[in-house]
């Protein structure tokens, strides 16, 4: 049976990540770094990925990781979403790591790179657009690929070409930074050329990339959940304190109902995100279905929460100084990332036998 609750270990992990983000996740500094084109805080990443070992949660101990699962990685992502943290966790520690884990891990090049990623010493990204859906078309790595998330800071690019999946040192590729809508997740265009280390043939490589994207989409739901939770809590706090017409604005029924409705959506999103994480962790035959349900639902909830956060904060919600805009930009970009809700519903139509006309 699907376990939709959090274990004690997961609660402990959450507490650790939350206190790290609280200590280092200053959104004003984040906005300033993002505007300067490099939103990452290397010290936060080092604490999270290396010291705390979060980068290696999906990697078995014998391959140099923590031997945990998608359930724990999902909790990390909830907290990163909550703090709208800029870090290559989703791209490197989930998507690239999961792709590598889907290859033959006896291969020296695969094992070596996995161990480096697990220890947080280096980061890798799969060279596909951030918008790529798990069952959608994949780009030919022989050409220029646009919209690759976190490519500008990655050490290694995993490039899928017709004849195989290659690990290419980022220094050997052309990486052109783009201006992203979501300031906290940098995008770049990547031209990897021809070199690199071949990790698998074309078919195995494509399957591994899809497996990486599926895990990424499933756990992105947890990032969206965390983001939505922050938006709701902050909006409740603000409207409880802000006075207009000689009353706290949170006492007006028109606003209350919107926040109660949002709470209902967040409660539901938590169940959907947990179901996806658990299905991935247990390698359930329903994983694709659970991921599609979670993405079709949680994407919308995160966007709705962020939009309500801006609106119910009134004028302050429109300012650069308040962090609401960082959340709105992340939520809207996350909606498109790893397949739009509509794309995931199309996948569902096939999976649950509700065919199009």
């Amino acid at each position: 049976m699907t376990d939709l609750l959090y274990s004690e270990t997961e609660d402990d992990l959450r507490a650790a990540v939350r206190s790290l983000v609280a200590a280092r996740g200053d959104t004003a500094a984040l906005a300033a770094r993002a505007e300067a084109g490099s939103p990452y805080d290397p010290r936060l990443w080092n604490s999270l990925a290396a010291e705390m070992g979060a980068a290696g949660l999906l990697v078995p101990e014998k391959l140099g990781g923590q031997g945990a699962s998608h359930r724990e990685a999902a909790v990390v992502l909830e907290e990163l979403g909550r703090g709208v943290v800029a870090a290559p966790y989703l791209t490197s520690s989930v998507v690239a790591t999961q792709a590598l884990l889907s290859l033959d891990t006896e291969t020296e090049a695969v094992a070596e790179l996995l161990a480096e990623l697990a220890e947080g010493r280096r980061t890798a990204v799969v060279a596909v657009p951030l918008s790529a859906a798990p069952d959608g078309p994949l780009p030919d790595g022989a050409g220029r690929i646009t919209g690759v998330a976190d490519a500008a800071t990655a050490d290694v690019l995993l490039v899928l070409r017709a004849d195989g999946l290659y690990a290419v040192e980022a220094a050997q590729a052309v990486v052109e930074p783009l201006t992203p809508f979501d300031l906290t997740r940098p995008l770049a265009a990547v031209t990897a050329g021809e070199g690199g280390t071949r990790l698998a043939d074309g078919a195995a490589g494509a399957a591994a990339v899809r497996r990486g994207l599926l895990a990424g989409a499933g756990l992105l739901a947890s990032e969206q959940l965390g983001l939505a939770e922050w938006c709701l809590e902050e909006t409740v706090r603000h409207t409880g304190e802000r006075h207009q017409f000689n009353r706290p604005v949170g006492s007006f029924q028109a606003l209350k109902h919107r926040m109660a409705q949002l709470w209902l959506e967040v409660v539901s999103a938590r169940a959907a995100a947990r179901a996806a994480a658990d299905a991935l962790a247990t390698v359930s035959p329903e994983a694709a279905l659970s991921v599609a349900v979670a993405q079709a639902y949680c994407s919308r909830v995160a966007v709705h929460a962020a939009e309500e956060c801006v609106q119910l904060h009134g004028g302050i919600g429109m300012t650069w100084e308040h962090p609401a805009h960082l959340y709105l930009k992340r939520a809207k970009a996350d909606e498109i990332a790893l397949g739009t809700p509509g794309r995931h519903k199309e996948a569902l139509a096939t999976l649950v036998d509700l065919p199009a006309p």
Partner: protein
Amino acid sequence: MTDAAELLDLTRKLLAAHPPATTDRADFLKARFDAGLAWVHFPEGLGGLGAPRSLQAVVDAELTAAGAPDNDPRRIGIGLGMAAPTILKYGSQEVKERFLRPLWTGEEVWCQLFSEPGAGSDLAALGTRAVRDEDSGEWIVDGQKVWTSSAHVARWAILIARTDPDLPKHRGITYFVCDMTDPGVEVRPLRQITGEAEFNEVFLTGVRIPDAHRLGEVGEGWKVAQTTLNNERVAIGGMRLPREGGMIGPIARTWRERPDLRTHDLHQRLLTLWVEAEVSRLAGERLRQQLVVGQPGPEGSAMKLAFARLNQEISGLEVELRAEEGLLYDDWTMRRPELVDFTGRDAGYRYLRSKGNSIEGGTTEVLLNIVAERVLGLPAEPRNDKDVAWKDLAR
């Protein structure tokens, strides 16, 4: 403390002493109650064993596997879900012993005399009076109640009535058990939007209630009613469903069987609702898992809100999907069903009946206020009825 192995053993002994195949249904249910296996978390002697509530599943699974009769909780839902927990908390030992056994076995059906024509969502505004007769010590009740499910088959009712009109509305209410066979009780069917009469109006004229049938102190009825209402929401929200187990099931089947009805617009809307129904099911399952490990969350009222909206949207879409057939209705005959039968009727019936889902058991608007204030901690709206005597309120 009673553990799972012990309960399993007791269940097997019950089955051995009363083989379901050869035992009368009512006799089996009585024996089960007397064995403490009716609701294991209730006290000994009252159908339970004081065991953890989560262990009921052990008993139920064993009984189901053996083909034992159940007490049809749908038919006696008000008694099981609302009257029983209130009686357990506020009844005297005599009252508990008198009422709980026939309530649980279904020999006696219960109804709920709460809502009135002038007091629905503002339930505490109710005006039905209960006056103490100094000679007999009995209470004499006069007033009118409405939206009363099962009143036409009920033997007993839980009733709230005003015992002091000079106090503010929440403080002058008292809670009673009312005998539905009293000559002063008149039940009239209230025909509804679907054509049937699932509810009733109940007229109370000089109804006499012994003081022993009062639950809680005089004037404390609002507090007692909260126990009933909280249990009502848990009962409505805590169901366990398989995938496509709710209203999404019939429309999904129609979609699969009738390619001629499919359009792109309907497909998009169907998929959206399918996702929402599945997510609500998962949220209900998560709530259930929380209850099992003893961490009940506030999600119970959320589930009722979600199901109400989904039932309405899904059934509305199904009427539209059926196109020309959606213009027809299965049967407008006035009937008095004992159960709400969503799946045995057609899409038009489901559409109309589900309109009640956002009204019955607390309107969506009232529940959203409760979530906002009690779960999210948002400030209450200013009120002008709190410190005013009930008799001075505008009506």
